[in-house]
């Protein structure tokens, strides 16, 4: 694989993954050694900055992620303005509800249900000690599994998770119910 191809594939991987992606995972997919991949990534980062691109590659330890450039923040905010109403509390609550009923659950699955990325909500919940890490899933990226904490029980006045109201108590229309059951119980 030549360098142009590598760059192209790496960009596609970072884009599709959208979370911080470990150098070793990139190297594994490309079947190229990590040192070489790290070099190419370094060049790509310079390139993205030099070439007036709208996005950049950010590096955290040995993880890489695509992100918009900070200088475009005002424009991005203008675009997303109608969404501003999404209060932190609501996003966090939705995420917490899913974790409570489906734990242990990786972030990706929560995002699948909510249809949006949940990094911030999860960070908040971790910070408030309502959820905690419950190990990792043995698959690519070894995603962290989240579950509720002892403090979650305390905050909601529950003795144990068994005290969580059964889903059927929800006031859902019957047609919705099937859907809900599918989402919650289908694995």
């Amino acid at each position, binding site marked *: 694989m030549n360098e142009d191809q590598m760059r192209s594939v790496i960009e596609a991987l970072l*884009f599709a993954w959208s979370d911080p992606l470990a150098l070793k995972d990139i190297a594994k997919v490309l079947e190229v050694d990590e040192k070489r991949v790290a070099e190419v990534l370094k060049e790509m980062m310079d390139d993205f900055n030099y070439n007036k691109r709208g996005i950049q590659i950010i590096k955290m330890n040995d993880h890489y992620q695509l992100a918009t450039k900070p200088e475009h923040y005002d424009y991005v905010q203008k675009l997303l303005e109608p969404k501003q*109403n999404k209060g932190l*509390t609501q996003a966090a*609550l939705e995420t917490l509800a899913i974790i409570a009923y489906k734990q242990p659950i990786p972030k990706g699955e929560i995002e699948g249900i909510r249809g949006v990325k949940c990094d911030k909500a999860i960070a908040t919940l971790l910070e408030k000690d309502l959820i905690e890490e419950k190990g990792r899933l043995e698959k690519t990226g070894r995603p962290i599994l989240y579950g509720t904490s002892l403090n979650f029980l305390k905050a909601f006045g529950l003795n144990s998770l068994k005290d969580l109201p059964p889903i059927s108590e*929800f*006031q859902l229309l019957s047609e919705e119910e099937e859907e809900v059951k599918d989402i919650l119980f289908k694995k």
Partner: protein
Amino acid sequence: MAYNVKLQAFEGPFDLLFHLIEKNEIDIYDIPINQVTDQYISYIRQMESLDLEITSEFLVMAATLLEIKSKMLLPVEVVDHVQLEIEELDPRHELVRKLLEYKKYKVVAEVFKEKEDLSKKLYFKPREEIIFEQEEDAHILENLEMADLLNALEKVLTSKNVKIKEKNTFHQMQRDSFTIEEKIIEIQKILSQKHTIKFKSLFETLSNRNEMITTFLALLELIKMKEVAVKQDLCFSDIEIKLKNIT
């Protein structure tokens, strides 16, 4: 058993007819109606013997074929004075027209299949949840109730429904026509005029689930912000909502 699978694969009478036409290398514009009718009917009999469901469409087509067959047996009367249209001359015309129309889309379906296969190779980026930071109340946990959690869950689950029903992901992003902020202002406005309102009255006029939930969340928010106080005299009685005195 391979035969069984093959029979099941027909999408309808036209599909089966096409199969026969192709198998026999028949010119579609000059269908030997006797042969095709016999083969068509023998297929249906096989389907029956294999206990396959024969939908009415297959039977209607069999009847049509038999009708055409019988018409073909009749001598064509050549009328001198009236110029007959082609379709009136040949009983097969209507069938051929329909077969050709169907074939057009059958071919397009194959083109679509290829395009679909290519597009399936694209990956998209999951949507970000962009939250504009707001200073969070440190006491937020004190007011948390099970109802909050359930409401939140119900919301996410029902919005999943919305997604399934109106899958247009683009509109979906903007579907929240009610914002908590707006609802908070609305409630504050009502309270500034009436001082005390009943919980029920807040929801009476709302028909939309989303609006109800948003209103409810707005109320929770106001409670958290210690702007309003709620009081319930008896179990299950209506809840009174009051503006807290600003000291």
